């Protein structure tokens, strides 16, 4: 998506689909419905991580951590206020919970970003990985959010409509941010930090902006996830969850919004299709990913020019 018009089209199509989908929701098989919502949540996660890893060229392995911050915040908020609010105002409470989850995650993004974004490449990856694990361990020991046994009975408010409307908003926000004059700075920072700073761009500010924005949407995705599964446990936000999201971004093609959306959908559906292989499922899943990466190392839908070595991160 090169133009802002393209971003707007995504938004309109997404919201239209969401409205139509929520109208037909009752007729859907609950299993398929659940998977469709998973797809939407993963789209939000992958597109927001793409802003950090793809467009801005940083390497974050902490996205599950931001998702956890948002998810637990939103869930706790809903659980506390659910009883005090009449049914007619529940959607408002849901929006408030998601927004709060996003904001707290963004705050966490700022907290991690400011000190660590002076690091590059592998070092940044290790710091963000550490951050994700810290979040998980902290949650595991917090009695107020259920500690290791998890947070239960979260109201089931996430619908197909909400999920895809928010996915559309995420895509729109990221695409229009990157395609603005200001936003080309993200690509400039990723292409060449030295050249960017000698053009008067402050790379640290761009990296922090990418981190905070990415974390905000990861937090929203966490909130949707919490109100979809109705149960949160710290193990759901481990290192492997972060890796899953990174794989979606790499497979889709770093910095290509459309590719990343499609990769998120494929990688959500793939394990479901492979259910019939039972024990061999994860082996086949891994082999397919290896195969895809060998066939298209630059990502499924990449057209962009990558400098030598740049694709290896």
């Amino acid at each position, binding site marked *: 998506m090169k133009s802002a018009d393209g971003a707007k089209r995504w938004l309109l199509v997404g919201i239209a689909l969401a409205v139509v989908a929520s109208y037909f929701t009752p007729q859907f098989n609950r299993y398929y419905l659940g998977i469709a919502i998973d797809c939407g949540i993963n789209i939000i996660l992958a597109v927001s991580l793409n802003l950090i890893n793809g467009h801005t060229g940083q390497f974050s392995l902490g996205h599950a951590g931001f998702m956890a911050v948002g998810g637990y915040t939103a869930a706790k908020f809903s659980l506390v206020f659910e009883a005090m609010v009449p049914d007619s105002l529940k959607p408002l409470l849901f929006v408030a919970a998601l927004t709060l989850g996003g904001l707290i995650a963004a705050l966490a993004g700022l907290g991690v970003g400011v000190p660590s974004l002076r690091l590059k490449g592998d070092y940044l990856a290790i710091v963000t990985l550490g951050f994700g694990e810290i979040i998980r361990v902290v949650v595991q020991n917090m009695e107020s959010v259920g500690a290791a046994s998890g947070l239960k009975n979260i109201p089931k408010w996430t619908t197909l409509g909400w999920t895809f409307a928010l996915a559309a908003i995420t895509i729109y926000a990221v695409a229009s941010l990157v395609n603005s004059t200001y936003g080309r700075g993200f690509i*400039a920072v990723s292409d060449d930090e030295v050249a*960017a700073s000698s*053009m008067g761009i402050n790379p640290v500010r761009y990296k922090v902006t990418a981190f905070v924005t990415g974390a905000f949407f990861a937090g929203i995705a966490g909130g949707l996830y919490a109100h979809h599964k109705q149960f949160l446990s710290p193990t759901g936000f481990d290192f492997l969850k972060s890796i899953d999201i990174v794989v979606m971004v790499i497979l889709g093609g770093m910095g290509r919004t459309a590719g990343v959306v499609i990769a998120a959908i494929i990688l959500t559906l793939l394990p479901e299709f492979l259910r019939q292989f039972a024990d061999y499922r994860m082996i086949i899943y891994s082999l397919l990913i290896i195969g895809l990466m060998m066939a298209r190392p630059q990502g499924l839908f990449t057209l962009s020019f990558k400098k030598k070595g740049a694709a290896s991160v």
Partner: protein
Amino acid sequence: MLEIDHLEVSYGSIRALHGISLKVPEKSIVTLIGGNGAGKSTTLRSISGLIKVRAGNVRYDGQDITNKPAHEIVARGLCHVPEGRMVFANLTVMENLHMGAYLRKDRAGIASDIEYAFTIFPRLKERISQLAGTLSGGEQQMLAIARALMSKPRCLMLDEPSLGIAPILVRSIFDQIVAINKERGLTILLVEQNANLALSISHYGYVLETGSVLIEDTAEALRKDPQVRAAYLGG
């Protein structure tokens, strides 16, 4: 316009610059020549804030800019074209030029400067919507210079503009550097391996060796200096 006084820079425990002093007068072209590892690029990088200075100071327009962040130095009108043609590979030629004007708000001025960039480097106009990463080496160097001009600098620092470029393009790039200096009154600090070519367009030159200034003189005199001729101009 640009004054460097006893500049010292280290990479870890290795001293790269041992107190270099030089002056770049307004509207002149000044060249730094010297072999590999003489400290030419390090000097430029420390002036533009890309690396930290240990001791000494850099004054631009009478103001101390030592160790200011790179993006603030650009805002003062001192622009650095780093070595190795660092264009934004995933942006088009036009987008690269707009990135150059990142700090500017005057739309009309930006448009007319883009026109100017296309008059000096007509090749870029032909490639206007191509991704910069797909340009040839010479075209990328033209783009890097044109992009630097977009920030409306008063002083331009060019690091090895001839590196890895076909000789015929090198000539035309150097002709344009002279044109920019004459037509726009830009002060230019040039670092170049091709000493002969560099001195032929410069007013003044400094010969650097292992982090110190060995000789300084007018470009004319340096070209005649037997020592410089033997070491850097091929006899």
